[in-house]
């Protein structure tokens, strides 16, 4: 029996433009739904980024507007040894810290994946260094690495590893200062990697391990051929984030060393702040900050293209 009382409009069967059609058009609707979020992102991310890049092509100072000067800031920075030192520091800091965080984080994830008592409590405790506000843990490390009052120095003196009045210049010697800030960063960053990798490990099916045991695989072989390939997509994501956060780190360095001693722990972010806000050279500071973009893009591209490969998505052997 046909129902003549209700007129059903099928948008796809009505030709041409009509409000009815538009109202149910998915693209149209999705545009409006996305608008608030997009507006937020544009206002707080895209606009400052664009403004920063534009500022880097001007000679703006704090307190007065600037004029367009093209690449002059970049040309100057090209010859500035402190800038290149900060680039070197940033790369060193990021590479060393990320590599160690990955290694230790993965190992920690594997350990946490095993069944043990108070599993949930231990996992929560492991997360604490990441949750504590960076500034607070930085201040604590500031005291731990103080030349005169370091508890590490005291411990080493007590056990006789060093002479009783020998002070270790944790934050005053270039190499030690770099090692100290890298250590602080590693301490803070491991939980993030560990917990994320742990989540990935949980998705690996137990039956694969059981089959491997039956086939007589060693633990290393199980890791190499089951765990690691299946974890690769997660690793790609978490390491991208980790590298991005580490590269742009500011708080830890600023509290511990302010970029010293002799600019040997200055990262690009801290140097940019010092030049732009403290020194008043907004244009030059913006140029330093903008100079970070190629490196960050390279990290993202590496991860993005890597994820496109099916081998990464679905594990080795699935090209």
């Amino acid at each position, binding site marked *: 029996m046909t129902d003549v009382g209700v007129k059903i409009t099928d948008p796809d069967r009505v030709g041409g433009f009509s409000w009815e059609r538009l109202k149910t058009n998915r693209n149209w609707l999705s545009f409006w739904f996305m608008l608030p979020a997009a507006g937020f992102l544009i206002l707080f991310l895209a606009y400052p980024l664009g403004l920063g890049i534009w500022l880097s092509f001007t000679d703006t100072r704090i307190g007065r507007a600037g004029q367009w000067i093209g690449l002059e800031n970049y040309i100057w920075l090209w010859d500035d040894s*402190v800038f290149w030192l900060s680039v070197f520091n940033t790369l060193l800091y990021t590479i060393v810290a990320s590599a160690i965080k990955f290694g230790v984080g993965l190992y920690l994830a594997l350990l946490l994946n095993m069944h043990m008592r108070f599993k949930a409590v231990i996992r929560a405790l492991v997360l604490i260094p990441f949750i504590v506000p960076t500034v607070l843990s930085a201040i604590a490390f500031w005291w731990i690495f103080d030349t005169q009052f370091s508890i590490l120095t005291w411990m080493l003196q007590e056990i006789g590893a060093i002479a009783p009045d020998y002070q270790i210049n944790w934050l005053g010697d270039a190499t030690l200062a770099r090692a100290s800030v890298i250590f602080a960063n590693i301490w803070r960053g491991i939980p993030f990697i560990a917990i994320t990798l742990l989540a990935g490990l949980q998705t690996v099916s137990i039956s694969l391990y059981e089959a491997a045991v039956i086939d007589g695989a060693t633990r290393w072989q199980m890791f190499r051929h089951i765990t690691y390939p299946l974890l690769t997509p997660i690793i790609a994501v978490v390491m991208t984030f980790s590298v991005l956060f580490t590269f742009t780190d500011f708080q830890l360095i600023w509290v511990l060393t302010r970029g*010293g*001693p*002799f600019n040997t722990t200055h990262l690009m972010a801290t140097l940019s702040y010092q030049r732009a806000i*403290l*020194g008043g050279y907004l244009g030059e500071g913006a140029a330093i900050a903008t100079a970070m973009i190629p490196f960050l893009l390279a990290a993202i591209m590496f991860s993005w293209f890597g994820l496109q490969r099916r081998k990464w998505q679905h594990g080795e052997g699935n090209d």
Partner: protein
Amino acid sequence: MNFNRRSLLKGTAALSAAVIGADLIGWAKAWAATEMKWTPEAGAKLELLRWKRFVQSEEDAFIKLVDAFTQATGVPVTILNESLDDVQPKASVAANVGSGPDMFWGLYSLPHLFPDHCMDVTDVADYLGGKYGGWSKAAETYGKSGGKWIDIPVAYNANLINYRQSAIEDAGFKEVPMDLPGFLELTKGLKAIGKPSGMALGHASGDGNAWVHWCLWAHGGNLVDANDQVIINSPETEAALVYAKELYDNWIPGTASWNDSFNNKAFLAEAVWLTNNGVSIYAAAKRGANPAADADDAAKAAAPKMAAIAEDMNHSVWPVGPAGKPTEFHICYPLLGMKYTKNPMAVKAFMQFLMEIENYGPWAAGAVGYLTQTLNDFENLPFWADDPKIAPAKLAAERTLTAGHLGSVGEKAAAALADFIILDMFANACSGRESAAGAMKMADRQARRVYR
């Protein structure tokens, strides 16, 4: 520089409280009726952003002073406190944005970073200078830009050599030598007896800048000449760097990581026996010697040691070098009003009120030597005689040079300070990372960029 300790000096606070007391408000009301030169706008409200106090009694006196102003004129003043290093960025942002606190009380050449945004206060400065014997020369340099006054230089903070009398006597000296070779001998002697000295070589904007600029200028070196041409690469600078390295080799290790509060910690812990600082270490020691009744056991246990340090320590001005005259570098604290303020008359009235001797006297007394006068007549304020140990701070006004020294005290000098060009040059040379020639070259290049 003392960021973290609160100094409550019971003795002097009582004195200043007695002077201030109820008298101040009565006087202030009379002042508003007869002496005030700029009438605040109706319904005016003021916001002042200042650096967070290092001496508690100074802050107490300041709050009383501000309160008296409000009672006398009906203008409420909100005081915002920021850490010393944060005042400049906040002021810069406010200038850029065009809104924020009406007044900023900052350091060095802050107003010169954005002179066009600062109120013209020539009339206030002329009135105060005329009434109180004129401004000290350095204060005038800090205050003026392009022929008019853009800020009121309220006070200096004298950065002095803090030393332990018993230590220098053990090293064979009765007082700190006033010549450079003698000072080096003292430093070596202190190291030899196991009571070394140390001064900040990290990015310490107060203490670090103070001693490296003194060392550079004492040897006749300069960053720029009178025309803002960079002249840092010179034999005089090299001599300064060689001297500094000799000092550094006899210091306690770790100074390259010191920011402004490390030397305070180290001195009070008797890890160093000579350093440079304002009088805040002394103030902290005196306060630690008299802990409050509800202080914790550690504080009470440390009280005798603090008392001993306060008793034993003293302050000294800096030695004079081949330059032939004092070449010290003391922080100047300028008070500026922003052009965007809706209440310029109220701002000027406040500036005048702050600098009147009836206010300035008790307030400086509350600061117990932390603040040194910029107006010449204030040299004879009575509180200086109360404690001979703080007397050297009184001389800061005459002995100081300005940021930029021979060159302009403007945004270039401010930028050079903020980028630690001189400080890093000394740090590189002292630690041996660079030779003196190499350190000079780097500083030269950086300076040329700033002064182009």
